[in-house]
């Protein structure tokens, strides 16, 4: 009989089961808190991931489509200076660029003068002429005929149609429009209702901003007034004091001017009526009427003055057939001018603008022009680099792991090697780039910028990962398998290669794939060995100059054009797709073939 059994009436040491003690409650609270922290951390991580992927994908949509012009033009044999019988080299070299530009300039006769013509030409990509030339070389019978060949639009055209330069709004209008021309080209615009009142208010809002700027300047002058006053008080000679007082008076006058100006501006802004001039800092007010586009240069509540951007049939008298268009960005903040908007919208209304899936992005190599740039070169470069890396890193890594795990004697030297392999995995990758530059390129003369050099460097970087993973996988094979093999008379090598290696292979492959994924996303060491160059040719082997996907992304993000940013984001999506696919394969291999003992 134990004591506990002998005294059943004694109070139980742990209290009743139903009522939790303070200690228990505290413990439970601590556990709940810990869980809450964990969930919060995971939620934060997921949110960050979603934001990252979301922003990349949203940006990448800009690279998914591109814009083509499909206006008709005549491949005039005179203008091109070639005939269908000319040799292909001559047909290829004919001035298609001029032909394309002239066709567009002819479409918009108001575009006279160098600037206007350059603006027209800037709508079409420079690459269009080469595509057209190639097309004509393949079909020389087209020469002398009228054709509609899709001409790739320039980056800014594409970005405009994507809404990158703001939207073109169409405010409701109620009145009838009357436009009359005058000698100097300005147009007098009047509507029967106060259709421009809202636009006028928007324009006036910017006056407040101007007034604020003036008041800031006035405050600075006020500061100067104070400083000069102090200096005058502290002046030692009468002359110096007077000079300071004079400067103070000047500053006071400037301050008062500025304040008066600001007040005048604010007054103007507050007033309902009045006429405001428009400049490049204001949103653009455009009118579509009489078969053309008019840009307003002055606006009041029911009309104003303007200039024709495209040909307009004048005069327009009390017409209900007009549209008022306003931009959301001022002309000074976009890379398409009002003129270009008018031309593009005219072409679009004619059905001469097509937007389609950007297959070029996957079939073209790099280019200076975003609309012509594609990832094929980088993708193929990455492929060759990965091939070199895999062909070297996998066998070397696996054999090194087998040697270290199965054959090497366990002594200080092998311990030293083991520690250093683990250390190598933590070496910053740029150091491998330096090593590659110094050894592979300078000593062994491996061609610069080539996948061979990149593959060698990435091999160095990937080897530790593969060796560590392979050693872990080999170690996980139970010794009983080795004993069984040795027991029936297999040599150590037979035991390793017939039994241990096949059983360790899923683990080794998993490690290898993860190492390769790491190498695929590596940038720094490749920049060191010159794989950052601008390569227009798709590499056809491991000794051609090449670049790789992550370096391409890095380069594209360096350019100011929004088209490159979109393409870089799209390239990130492609890279991520590959990385996710590789990791999924690694997980699949592990789940499918992993064996537990």
């Amino acid at each position: 009989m134990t004591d506990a059994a002998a005294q059943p009436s004694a109070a139980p040491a742990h209290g009743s089961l139903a009522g939790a003690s303070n200690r228990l409650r505290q413990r439970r609270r601590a556990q709940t808190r810990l869980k809450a922290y964990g969930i919060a951390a995971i939620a934060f991580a997921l949110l960050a991931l979603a934001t990252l992927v979301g922003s990349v994908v949203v940006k990448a949509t800009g690279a998914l489509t591109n814009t083509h012009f499909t206006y008709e033009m005549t491949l005039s044999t005179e203008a091109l200076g070639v005939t269908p019988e000319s040799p292909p080299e001559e047909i290829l070299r004919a001035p298609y660029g001029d032909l394309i530009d002239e066709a567009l300039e002819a479409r918009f006769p108001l575009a006279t003068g160098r600037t206007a013509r350059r603006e027209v030409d800037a709508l079409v990509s420079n690459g269009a002429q080469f595509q057209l030339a190639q097309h004509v070389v393949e079909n020389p019978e087209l020469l002398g005929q009228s054709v509609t060949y899709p001409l790739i639009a320039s980056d800014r055209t594409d970005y405009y149609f994507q809404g990158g330069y703001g939207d073109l709004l169409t405010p409701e209008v109620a009145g009838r429009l009357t436009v009359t021309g005058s000698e100097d080209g300005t147009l007098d615009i009047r509507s029967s209702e106060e259709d421009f009142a809202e636009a006028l208010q928007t324009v006036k809002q910017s006056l407040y901003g101007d007034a604020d700027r003036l008041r800031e300047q006035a405050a600075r002058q006020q500061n100067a007034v104070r400083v000069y006053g102090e200096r005058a008080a502290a002046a030692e000679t009468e002359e110096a004091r007077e000079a300071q007082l004079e400067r103070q008076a000047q500053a006071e006058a400037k301050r008062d001017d500025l304040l008066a100006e600001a007040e005048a501006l604010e007054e103007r802004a507050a007033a309902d009526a009045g006429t405001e001039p428009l400049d490049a800092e204001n949103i653009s007010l455009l009118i579509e009427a009489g078969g053309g586009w008019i840009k307003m240069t002055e606006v009041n509540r029911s009309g104003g003055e303007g200039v024709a951007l495209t040909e307009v049939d004048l005069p327009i008298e009390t017409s209900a057939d007009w549209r008022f268009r306003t931009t959301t960005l001022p002309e000074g903040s976009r890379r398409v001018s009002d003129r270009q908007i008018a031309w593009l919208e005219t072409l679009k209304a004619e059905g001469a603008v097509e937007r389609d899936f950007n297959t070029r992005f996957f079939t073209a190599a790099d280019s200076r022009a975003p609309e012509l740039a594609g990832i094929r070169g980088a993708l193929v470069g990455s492929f060759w680099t990965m091939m070199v890396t895999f062909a070297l890193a996998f066998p070397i890594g696996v054999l090194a792991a087998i040697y270290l795990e199965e054959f090497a004697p366990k002594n200080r030297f092998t311990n030293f090697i083991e520690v250093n392999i683990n250390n190598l995995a933590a070496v910053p990758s740029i150091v491998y780039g330096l090593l590659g530059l110094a050894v592979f390129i300078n000593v062994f003369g491996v061609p610069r910028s080539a996948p061979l050099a990149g593959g060698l460097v990435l091999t160095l970087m990937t080897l530790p990962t593969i060796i560590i993973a392979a050693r872990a996988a080999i170690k996980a094979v139970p010794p009983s398998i080795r004993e069984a093999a040795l027991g029936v008379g297999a040599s150590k090598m037979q035991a390793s290669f017939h039994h241990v290696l096949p059983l360790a292979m899923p683990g080794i492959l998993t490690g290898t794939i993860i190492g390769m994924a790491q190498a695929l996303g590596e940038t720094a060491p490749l920049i060191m060995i010159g794989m950052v160059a601008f390569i227009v040719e798709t590499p056809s082997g491991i000794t051609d100059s090449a670049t790789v996907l992550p370096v391409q992304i890095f380069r594209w993000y360096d350019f100011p054009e929004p088209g490159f940013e979109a393409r870089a984001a799209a390239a990130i999506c492609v890279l991520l797709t590959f990385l996710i696919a590789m990791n999924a394969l690694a997980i699949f291999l592990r789940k499918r073939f992993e064996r537990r003992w």
Partner: protein
Amino acid sequence: MYDTSKTADSATEQMSTKFHCADVQVFYGETHAIKDVNVDIQDKTVTAFIGPSGCGKSTFLRCLNRMNDTIDVARVQGTILLDGEDVYDARVDPVQLRAKVGMVFQKPNPFPKSIYENVAYGPKIHGMARNKADLDVIVERALRRAALWDEVKDRLDASGTGLSGGQQQRLCIARAVATEPEVLLMDEPASALDPIATSQIEELIDELRQNYAVVIVTHSMQQAARVSQKTAFFHLGNLVEYDDTSKIFTNPEDPRTESYITGRIG
């Protein structure tokens, strides 16, 4: 189960010495694991090594086919002769030796391959079969000897790891006998098995005695008494007593042996 006294008597008379071991010492680094072991293991006899845990019986067993070579710190001194040849001679290839001296381990350790592949692996690497038909014959003979043929003949392509524990151990025995060894070393072959599987293995050991010298390490004294004709008792690295099984279990000479078999030490 077995009339050990009779079989032992008839066996010892006709048997020749298979292993002659003299002054065997084994060191694991600084540890002196086996001290001065002298024993003659006879052909076509089941010899049992008994003793408490850590007494060195498994270590000594592994000396016989040089499995200790795989342990870096292990050193073996003394003489071990197999049919008059020194096992530890520099010219002896352990691979050749292990083909002659097969081994079955404590835990069934079939290769994670098909039953057929498990048995065929040894003959294949030793070049014992010229073609598939030869190999089929060898595999069938080995499986029959291991009393497993009838149970697996219809599923030779099934994985060896899918068998039951007792079947796996018999598969390992089949794998060991497939290379036509002369000696079979068994390191506690039934310790991981249930009683029914154990009795099957014991029956099998008794049958294997007709063709091979069998050395078995066991923790179970009953098992030693049931299957062996000769028994060696190890204690703290020393071979305390080596004699006919019947004598060891009925009339041991050394007081330590008596203490062990009566359960006072161990």
